């Protein structure tokens, strides 16, 4: 797994998770993502277009991030989920909890 953080303009932070987020790599993903959410009123887009695989360990991190973003009066959106990853969101009921977008542009608009 690789996590890349880039500014998305207007204070938005884009976190791109690439490869596999499983129990072995979830810790690194957690540190990066929760770090980005720490400031108040965080605006985060998690770009999943290069994410090939996510297990419950990765969803755990995303749920923590979503809860914390709300607590900190911020916004979090996801984009670019590949079909297998999307299936995992569907099975877990996360599709109804998260703001999920097909394009990065649409996710950026949602958090701005």
């Amino acid at each position, binding site marked *: 797994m690789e996590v890349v953080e880039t500014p998305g303009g207007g204070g938005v932070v884009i976190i791109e998770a690439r490869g*596999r987020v*499983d*129990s*072995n790599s979830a810790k690194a993903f957690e540190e990066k993502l929760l770090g980005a959410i720490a400031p108040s009123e965080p605006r985060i887009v998690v770009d999943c277009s290069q994410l090939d*695989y996510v*297990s*419950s*360990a990765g*969803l*755990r991190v995303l*749920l*923590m991030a*979503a*809860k914390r973003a*709300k607590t900190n009066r911020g916004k979090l959106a996801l984009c670019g989920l590949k079909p*297998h990853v999307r299936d*995992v969101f569907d*099975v*877990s*009921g996360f599709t*109804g*909890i998260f703001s999920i977008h097909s394009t990065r542009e649409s996710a950026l608009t949602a958090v701005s």
Partner: protein
Amino acid sequence: MSAVLELRLANRLSEIRRVAERIESFCAIGGVPESVIFKLNLALDEVLTNIIDYAYDEEGEHEIILRVVLVREILSAEVVDDGRPYDPTLTPDPDTGLSLDDRPIGGLGIYFAKRMMDRVVYVRDGNRNRLTLSKSTGKGADEAG
């Protein structure tokens, strides 16, 4: 031709990615659809992660045995560990309809394993847990969830 892949792993999370690569290659050559391979790998990832995280009291090294069997259109995987007795088939499913605020963190691993596969069977065998997960690779396997 029937084929069996047997892997012996250490109780380390870093083994899981390599298990996934081996299973991918074993199943792909056997003509198992990509979507079924993904589901088996997710189910096994969850089961192995739980064993590594929860099954052992001490820090010592333990061996986990994984046997994947492909016979005609049935793909099955047996996971054997010598950790504390634990029957994951008895774990209640999470409520996946809760709102963000009410949704507890965690509790999805076993549920994923069950949902990805057609059948999950647990047996305590001497001082070992033996979990067998199976799935049809044939028509409609994709839609099974």
